[in-house]
C-alpha cells in the first residue's frame, strides 16, 4: 500500500481533495451563493431534473390510483351519496363559485399587491436530506430570482430563497428553525416571531413565539407577516393558530400555527422578486428588536416603542 502513497495517482487525488476543500471554504464564505462547479453541474442537471420530476408526478399519480383503488372506491361511494344529498341544493352554483375562488387567489396576489414583481416556479427537486420540507425550484438568477426573495403560493407564505444558481434555486421553509418571520395576529394585532421547531415540523406545524403574556391571541386567529426587516412583505398569510400555550418560564405565550400552505406537498410556487421596501439583508426579527433596543439605550433614549422596534 505504501507504493500507492508515493504514486502519481495519490498526488492527483490529493490535489482534487485540496480543490474540493477550497470549494467548500468558498461556499462557506459566500453564504448561499453556489460555486462555479455547482453552477455548471446545476445547468447540466436541471433539464433532466425537470423531465424526471414531471415523469415522477405522472407515474406516482397512476400508481397511487392503482394501489389505492379500494380507498377510492369507498370514497367514490361516499361521494355519490353526498352528491345525492347535494342535488337538493344549488350544486352548480357552489362548484362554479369554488373554482372561481381558486383562480382568483393567484390574481389577488397581484391585484392586492401592485408593487409585487413575481415569478412563477415549479418544484423540481426534494433532496433525501432536505431540511424541513426544503425544495429546489426551476427558476434561478437568469429569471431574476435573488437570495432571500420571499416564496409564496396562492394560500400563503412558504419561505425564502436560500441558494440561487443560474437555472435553479433552493427554498428553506417556515418549518425550518433557522428562518424567523416577524408576524402579527390579524385580529388582536399582537406581534410575534414564527419559526419552526423539530417536533412541530414533523407534523407540518410551526411556532409563533414572543407573544405578550397579556395577549388575547386565541385558537382560530389568522396570522400574517408584519413586514419586519423588509425581507417579507407585510400582510402575507402565514397560518392559523391551533393552540396557545405559556412558555416554559412563563414570561410569554407561544402559539402553535397550522401553516396556510401544506409545505410537504407544494408543486408550484410564486417567487416575489421585488416589492416596495424590500431588503435582502436578513436579520432575524428577534435580533433586530434586540439591536434597536441596544441602539436606543446607547443613544440615551429611555425606551423604544414596540411598534418601532418591530
Amino acid at each position: 500500500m505504501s507504493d500507492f502513497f508515493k504514486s502519481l495517482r495519490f498526488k492527483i487525488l490529493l490535489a482534487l481533495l485540496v480543490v474540493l476543500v477550497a470549494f467548500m471554504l468558498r461556499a462557506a464564505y459566500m453564504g448561499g451563493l453556489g460555486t462555479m462547479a455547482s453552477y455548471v453541474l446545476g445547468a447540466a442537471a436541471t433539464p433532466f431534473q425537470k423531465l424526471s420530476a414531471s415523469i415522477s408526478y405522472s407515474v406516482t399519480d397512476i400508481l397511487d390510483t392503482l394501489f389505492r383503488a379500494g380507498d377510492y372506491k369507498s370514497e367514490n361511494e361516499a361521494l355519490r351519496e353526498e352528491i345525492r344529498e347535494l342535488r337538493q341544493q344549488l350544486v352548480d352554483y357552489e362548484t362554479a363559485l369554488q373554482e372561481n375562488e381558486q383562480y382568483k387567489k393567484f390574481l389577488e396576489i397581484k391585484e392586492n399587491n401592485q408593487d409585487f414583481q413575481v415569478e412563477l416556479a415549479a418544484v423540481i427537486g426534494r433532496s433525501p436530506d432536505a431540511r424541513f420540507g426544503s425544495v429546489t425550484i426551476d427558476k434561478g438568477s437568469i429569471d431574476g430570482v435573488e437570495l432571500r426573495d420571499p416564496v409564496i403560493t396562492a394560500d400563503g407564505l412558504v419561505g425564502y430563497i436560500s441558494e440561487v444558481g443560474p437555472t435553479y434555486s433552493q427554498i428553506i421553509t417556515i418549518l425550518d428553525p433557522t428562518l424567523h418571520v416577524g408576524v402579527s395576529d390579524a385580529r388582536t394585532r399582537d406581534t410575534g416571531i414564527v419559526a419552526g421547531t423539530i417536533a412541530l415540523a414533523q407534523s407540518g406545524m410551526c411556532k409563533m413565539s414572543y407573544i405578550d403574556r397579556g395577549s388575547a391571541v386565541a385558537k382560530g386567529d389568522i396570522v400574517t407577516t408584519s413586514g419586519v426587516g423588509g425581507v417579507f412583505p407585510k400582510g402575507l398569510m402565514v397560518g392559523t393558530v391551533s393552540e396557545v400555550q405559556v412558555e416554559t418560564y412563563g414570561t410569554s405565550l407561544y402559539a402553535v400555527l397550522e401553516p396556510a400552505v401544506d409545505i410537504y406537498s407544494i408543486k408550484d410556487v410564486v417567487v416575489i422578486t421585488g416589492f416596495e421596501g424590500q431588503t435582502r439583508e436578513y436579520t432575524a426579527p428577534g435580533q433586530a428588536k434586540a439591536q434597536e433596543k441596544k441602539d436606543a439605550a446607547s443613544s440615551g433614549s429611555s425606551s423604544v416603542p414596540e411598534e418601532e422596534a418591530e
Partner: protein
Amino acid sequence: MTAIEKKKFFAGFRYIVYGALFLLLYVLQNTPRLFLIRGVKPILLIPAAVVFAMYEGEFIGGIFGALAGMLCDLGGFFLFGFDAILTLVFSAVSGLLIIYLLRRNLRNAFLLVFLSMSLRCCLTYFFMYHMWQYEGTPSIFWDSTLWVILYSTLLTPIYFVIWKKLCGFFHRRME
C-alpha cells in the same frame, strides 16, 4: 477498427457511460416522491460511488466519487463540497481496501456502504442539527437519519450487480 483502436475507444467511452449513470442516479435521487417511503428517501449516489470504486479501483473510483459527491452537494442543503470530499475519501479507501485487504463480494459491499453512509449521515446530522442544539434534535436522528442509512444501504445489491456487469463488460472489451 483495429483491436488497439477498439481498446482505446472502450477505454474512453466507459467514462462517458459511468458519468451518465451517475447523472441518472442524481436525477432519480432528487426526483420528488420517487422511492419515498414514509417520508424517507434513500441516498443513491454515495453507495453507488463506493461500490463503483470496488470495481474500478482507488483512482478512477476516487474521481467518480468526487463527481458523485458534488452532485449530492448540488441537490443538498449543506456546504457545497462537503459530500464531494467525503465521497472521494470513501471511494478511494474502498478501492484500496478491495485491492489490499478485502474480497470483492456482496457482503463486503454491504459493509463498506453501511460504514460510509453511517459516517456521512452522522456527520451531516451533527453539523446540520446537533451542533445547533435545536429543541428535539434527537428525533431527527431516530426518525430520519437512521432510516436513510438503512434504506440507502439496502439498495447495495442493485449497484453491486449493475457495476459488476458494466465494469466487467468494459474490462473484457479492453483486454
